[in-house]
């Protein structure tokens, strides 16, 4: 090798290094931080869970117990477990179907029929999913149990006809309660889709002479199928992960979360719990695949330059129908909230009616819940702010910069969204409980982290959906004028996507204030939250205290949502898109 040649080579090398340092790494770094965070707090726990699923049974220990298929053998070899699996599938699928049957017409009515108080309807129509399901289940017993006030009243009315309605216990009750709890997902998405769909398409079809049903069948419905698919999946995941409703009104019909409780709390066997969690994830995965398959055949790109006002039905019949439908659904699904508000002023509700009027339940909040209130607000607000920052930066990078591995990042962020809460909790517990490398149980950090892992998708999706509709020309103009990407992001993009950040954050904050399923496995003496206290109060039959605390949360949450809904441009449904 000649000296000259090697000099050129060296020159090229220095150039490369120079170039390397001249490159802007800020994006890469900002991309890597969340990736590392996700790797530690999501992928690692999930991997541990997967590995544990193949360990021998553990008794009150987190240590390695040897490789074995015992967990799966127990599962598939026990009649009770198989029955629970079948119950879970039946309940979740039925709930999904019923939620679509209720949510889509209601969404259509609110979006396309001229009725008063739409913002109030939309705000009220999200409350059912925001109450801890455990509390909801108890109120259904008070309303529709053997001794429930609504059931007794209906049976009294039906008496002349010789008919009685059965009590709530069993499969039917579970499906009913979960449907009335989860239909808001479909309703909000359908409302968003119907009011956001491109009106020009329908108008042109109408001009060309298509009838209303034809337009509905060939244009309107196909356009909302992606939203529908996403909300159906959300409902399915929530339903299959719900522990509270089956525990209170399922009777002998056990479901998968029941089995996870048997394994973890009953037998102290986190490995068996992991095996069940893995089976749970496989089912969810299959449903996700099915959903993607259906939606992929119905994905349309619509080009909408301007947002035209959508034509609304104004006929008397349509308006009457819409109002009656919305009222019936809202009244039934908000009965638990009403029950709780009534109950909060009474000592007990053991018979048909509540007895012992009192203010004490509220007075006790100041005496006994100040620490818990502080924890709830501190944890939820901190996690929400972090989700807002994280979620919007991540969405911006993946959507605008499309770096290598964006798909992986996208999948990782969305994973907790489609994983049942019990599964995420078991994963976090098996990774950070016990004598693991990171022992974080009982700290504020673990709660904030788990909240972030589970809720960042809201802001992320909301912002990503907003960015795809946003013409990048403004951002390009800023970049061409010499601004760095971060400056552009801060000064140009953020103001434009603010409504999306807010709606995602509101969804995050309101659901976190009521979070129970993750908190209950990870809290400690210093990090007790209000939902934990509600759960304990319900458990010891102190429904008055539970109701007063729930009412306080309910009012805070409703105030936040209503304030947001009265603002322009914010739309809760965008934070649920997949």
């Amino acid at each position, binding site marked *: 090798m000649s000296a000259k040649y090697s000099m050129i080579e060296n020159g090229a090398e220095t150039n490369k290094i120079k170039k390397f340092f001249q490159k802007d790494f800020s994006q890469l770094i900002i991309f890597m931080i969340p990736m590392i965070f996700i790797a530690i707090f999501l992928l690692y726990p999930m991997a541990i869970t997967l590995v544990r699923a193949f360990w021998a049974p553990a008794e*009150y*220990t*987190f240590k390695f117990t040897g490789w074995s298929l015992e967990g799966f053998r127990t599962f598939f070899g*026990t*009649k*009770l477990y198989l029955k629970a699996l079948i119950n879970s599938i039946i309940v979740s699928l039925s709930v999904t179907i019923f939620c679509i049957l209720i949510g889509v017409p209601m969404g259509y009515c609110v979006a396309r029929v001229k009725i008063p108080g739409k913002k109030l309807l939309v705000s009220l129509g999200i409350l059912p999913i925001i109450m801890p399901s455990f509390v909801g289940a108890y109120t259904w*017993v*008070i309303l529709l*149990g*053997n*001794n429930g006030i609504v059931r007794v009243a209906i049976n009294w009315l039906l008496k002349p006809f010789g008919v009685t309605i059965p*009590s709530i*216990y069993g499969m039917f009750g579970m499906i009913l309660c979960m449907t009335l709890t989860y239909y808001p997902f479909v309703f909000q998405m359908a409302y968003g889709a119907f009011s956001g769909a491109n009106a020009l398409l329908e108008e042109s079809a109408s001009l060309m002479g298509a009838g209303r049903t034809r337009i509905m069948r060939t244009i309107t419905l196909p356009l909302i199928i992606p939203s529908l698919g996403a909300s159906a999946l959300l409902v399915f995941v929530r339903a299959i992960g719900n522990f509270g409703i*089956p*525990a*209170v009104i*399922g*009777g*002998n019909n056990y479901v998968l979360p*029941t089995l996870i*409780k*048997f394994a*973890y*709390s*009953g*037998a*102290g066997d986190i490995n068996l719990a992991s095996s069940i969690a893995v089976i749970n994830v496989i089912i969810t995965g299959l449903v996700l695949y099915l959903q993607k398959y259906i939606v992929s055949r119905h994905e349309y790109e619509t080009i909408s330059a301007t947002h035209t006002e959508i034509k609304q039905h104004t006929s008397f019949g349509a308006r009457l129908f819409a109002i009656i439908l919305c009222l019936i659904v809202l009244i039934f699904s908000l009965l638990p909230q009403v029950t709780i508000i009534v109950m909060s002023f009474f000592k*007990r509700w*053991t*018979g048909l009616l509540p*007895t012992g009027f009192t203010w004490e339940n509220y007075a006790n909040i100041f005496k*006994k819940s*100040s*620490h818990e*209130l*502080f924890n709830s*607000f*501190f944890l939820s*607000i901190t996690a929400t*702010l972090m989700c807002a920052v994280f979620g919007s930066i991540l969405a911006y990078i993946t959507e605008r910069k499309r770096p290598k591995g964006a798909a992986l990042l996208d999948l990782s962020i969305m994973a907790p969204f489609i994983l049942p809460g019990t599964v995420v909790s078991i994963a976090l517990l098996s990774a950070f*409980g*016990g*004598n693991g490398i990171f*022992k974080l*149980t009982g700290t504020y950090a673990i709660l904030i982290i788990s909240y972030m892992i589970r809720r960042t998708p809201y802001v992320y999706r909301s912002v990503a959906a907003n960015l795809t509709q946003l013409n990048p020309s403004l951002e390009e103009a800023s970049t061409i004028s010499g601004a760095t990407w971060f400056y552009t992001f801060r000064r140009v993009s953020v103001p434009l996507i*603010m409504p999306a950040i*807010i709606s995602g*954050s*509101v969804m995050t904050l309101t659901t976190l204030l009521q979070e129970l399923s993750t908190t209950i496995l990870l809290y*400690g*003496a*210093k990090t*007790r939250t209000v939902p934990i*206290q509600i759960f304990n109060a319900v*458990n*010891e*039959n*102190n429904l008055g205290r539970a109701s007063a605390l729930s009412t306080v949360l309910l009012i805070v949450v409703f105030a936040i949502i209503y304030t*947001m809904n009265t*603002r322009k441009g914010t739309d809760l449904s965008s934070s649920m898109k997949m």
Partner: protein
Amino acid sequence: MKKLFVVMLILATVFTAVFAEAAAENKGAEKMELVILSAGKESESEALIEAFNKEYPNISVTHLEKDSGDVLTLVQQNSSDSDVVLLIAQDSLIPMAANLYPYKNVNDAKFDAEYKDPEGRWYACSMPLQTFMYNTDLLKGDDVPKSWFDLADPKYYGKIVMTNPSSSGSAYAQLYMMYKLTGDLSLAEAIAKNGTTYVTDSKSGPQAVARGEYALTMTGESNVSSAMANGSPVNYLYPQEGTGRRIEGAGIIDGCKNLEAAKIFMDWFTGKGGAEVIRSVGRRPVSTEVGGPDFLPALNELPFFEYDAIEAGDLKKQLRADFNALL
């Protein structure tokens, strides 16, 4: 739009300030801290802390409640941040004894050998005796069952609610008692076949009976006395064959952060002060210095049969699996 964030931030700051101040006021001059981990109810922890703080206002106590199975996992793993475990049933207490700190408290001499660990790792505080609890509006006079075997009587078809032994320690204790009565699971099977509902949470059975959703359940007697104190239309009946003599207790977690405060607490808890609170919340203290709980019969009036906590522990896995195969 930014306003909402600003409002949120302000809210966060205000809450932090207000509650941090409130928390600061609670603490006395000479500060000690203590964390208790209880398998009992939240209101029971609150009652204990209130009484304890009257004598020791300088010790700031925080509490958390978990199922006894969860407590066992936490303690065996040294992964709890707590100092003292409370109200843990004997079948969970014995396996965790090695992880408890041996401390002979000032009341040691008052405890019979069966009510304490020989090295002082745990002391019994109360007895979680299991009894029938029935709704007095739904069952009257001769309709009230008298024997364990009555639960299989077709006249109670669909009226009984029990807890699945896989999810609760006390429900497992009931299953083990049925096993002791017949030497197999034939009684448990007959009851299961009698349209009995097995809920997954030991607290919801007694609540359902208090509400009149079901007529009858088997539960810890403290649930009956607290429901009666609350004015619910319920009553107890101890089955004529007897009920298992079980105990629950407390101990200091080995390697805990606040050992001195924990010792002070155990000295108080095992004495008359602790027993008074145990009695007042409806539990049956083992201490003879105070009486039994309100509404419930005295200890010497109750029929008992042998309850072998160690054998119960050994058979737990098998009996639970066999029982679940019956459902």
